[in-house]
């Protein structure tokens, strides 16, 4: 399997009065079609690492390569473009735009990328939502959906532009066990059926054990699993 994402001695230090090191010397590789868990105690730097991998934050030192392309020379617009086409995000809270329906929320990344016609976008949004069991909720706004349904809409949105890598930050953290299992199964299918790579930050060790690989972070460093 070829490397989809690689990091080399990735370090992130917050320039406070007393500098805070969030991530330190993280070197890892995410391969294609890999389902990777990032675990660790609270405040260990799991989410910070995920934001660095997702180009939402910039490392103090170290390098990131996505699809073979180094992220450091990219300007803000290029980083945004890379996020749009190469990465999908699922957060602990759904973060859907509240004024838009489920279908419109899924269409937003496609509309931004602008590769499909309006009818193709609509067809793809409907297909993604239906495949996640939301075929009857296409025109509902987030406040008309349950927590699990919202999270599934967020997953559908992360897949909108067919990115090869999905980054999930505690995707089941705000869900009950039934919905957690449902979302986990969906993420698992993304890897096994759709050929995506998924990197998920989680506290749930049982869930992490069921993934292909587990990277354990302690104090910003990889303690195990790189």
């Amino acid at each position, binding site marked *: 399997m070829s490397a989809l994402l690689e990091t080399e001695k990735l370090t992130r230090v917050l320039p406070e009065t007393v500098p805070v090191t969030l991530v330190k010397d993280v070197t890892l590789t995410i391969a294609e079609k890999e389902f990777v868990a990032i675990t660790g105690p609270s405040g260990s730097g799991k989410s910070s690492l995920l934001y660095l991998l997702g180009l939402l934050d910039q490392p103090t030192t170290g390098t990131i390569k996505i699809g073979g392309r180094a992220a450091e020379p990219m300007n*803000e617009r290029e980083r945004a473009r890379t996020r749009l086409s190469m990465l999908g995000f699922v*957060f602990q809270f759904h*973060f*859907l*735009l509240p004024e838009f329906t489920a279908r419109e929320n899924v269409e*937003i*990344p496609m509309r931004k990328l602008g590769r499909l016609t309006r009818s193709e976008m609509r067809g793809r949004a409907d297909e993604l939502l239906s495949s996640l069991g939301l075929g009857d909720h296409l025109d509902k706004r987030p406040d008309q959906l349950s927590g699990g349904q919202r999270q599934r809409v967020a997953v559908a949105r992360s897949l909108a532009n067919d990115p090869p890598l999905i980054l999930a930050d505690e995707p089941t953290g705000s869900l009950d066990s039934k919905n957690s299992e449902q979302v986990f199964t969906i993420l698992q299918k993304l890897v096994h059926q759709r050929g995506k790579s998924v990197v998920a930050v989680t506290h749930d060790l049982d869930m992490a054990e069921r993934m292909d690989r587990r990277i354990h972070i302690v104090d910003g460093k990889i303690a195990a699993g790189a």
Partner: protein
Amino acid sequence: MPLILDIAVTHIAGRGRQTLVAVIGVAVGVGFSIAMAALMQGGQDDFVKQLVDTMPHVDITDEQRTARRQPAEDIFSTVAISGLRPRDDRRGIINPTAATAWLESWIPGRFAESLKTQGVIRYSSREVGAAIIGVEPERERGVSPIVEDFVKGSFAALNAGGNNVLIGDTMAGRLGAGLGDTITAVSSEGLTRDFKIAGLFHTGTTARDEGEAYVLLKNAQILSARPNAINEIRIKLDDPNRAPVVAHRAEAELGYKAVAWQEANESILQALVVRNVIMYTVVGAIMLVAGFGIYNIISTITHEKARDIAIMKSLGFPEADMRRLFLLEGLAIGGAGSALGWALGFSMIYALSLVRFEIAATGQEMTHLPIAWSLLHYIIASAFALGSAAVAGYLPARRAARLNPVDIIRGAT
């Protein structure tokens, strides 16, 4: 609809009441600016029109801007000459026939020559000082609005009979004379001549109504003992704006002082410019206040939508899109306010145009407020509003675009 516009519309539509207040703020500003501009421009146009209509566009008199060179200067090396007294104090435009023939050949308009002399009008035992103006009635008709200002008799009566005079109604009142009475005109040369009052005019300008008397040119020439003399040529142009050019050419050719109406009223026209500056400063101030309303709402939206900003940036929207989004929201409010303001401004102007009143003190009737209907006022007010909206939208938009999505996502979790 483009995505950014779509999101912008949902944002401002989601805050109906606040958006409405901001839109009304802009609309009131735009509406009042338009109405004020229409009223002030109308007043100015009316004033300038009165100015242009009542006075000659170019006035050529027998004066010269610089003193003539004296023969003594050619003989002696003089430093200064003072206390000059003309041997014969009978000024006038030399060779008036040639001068008028030359003007006739190129002037784009009409002109009338006249001889103005100072004198006294006597009736019964009363006397009034007056400027006795000799005119050619047919030519005068083309340059002077006085023809339309007769309250008794008419300007045409000047031609009917040899010794008719037209005086202002105020002068007639002071003399105690009326239409058909015979007055005596005494010139500064001491010559006297009787004239029959054939018309009374009222221009509304006290100095004219009280101090001018019109007679035939030849009578004025006789009265001032200056046969064939004229001392003033008044020109009305088809295009009053050409007056400076015409005046310049006439003065260069004839050698006499030719004053365009713009030069004669330079200080007034400058005052009008200052008035316009004040007006547009006030318009700008109104729009600035309206801009605060827009700033307030866009600022609130960006604050409330911080999470949406974070998620859009994480989805792949660059900072420029965020700036564009909130700038668009500001402009949308400014645009909606402008459109509503146009309607409000138009309604106010229409209502003002219906106001009618009289100014009784002068006896003059002013039937309505002077209003200028100009698209430019609408465009300027909207430009101010949109400019103010753009600034008011851009400042919070720039701040929103710089938000670090990680900070917001961490805050939410």
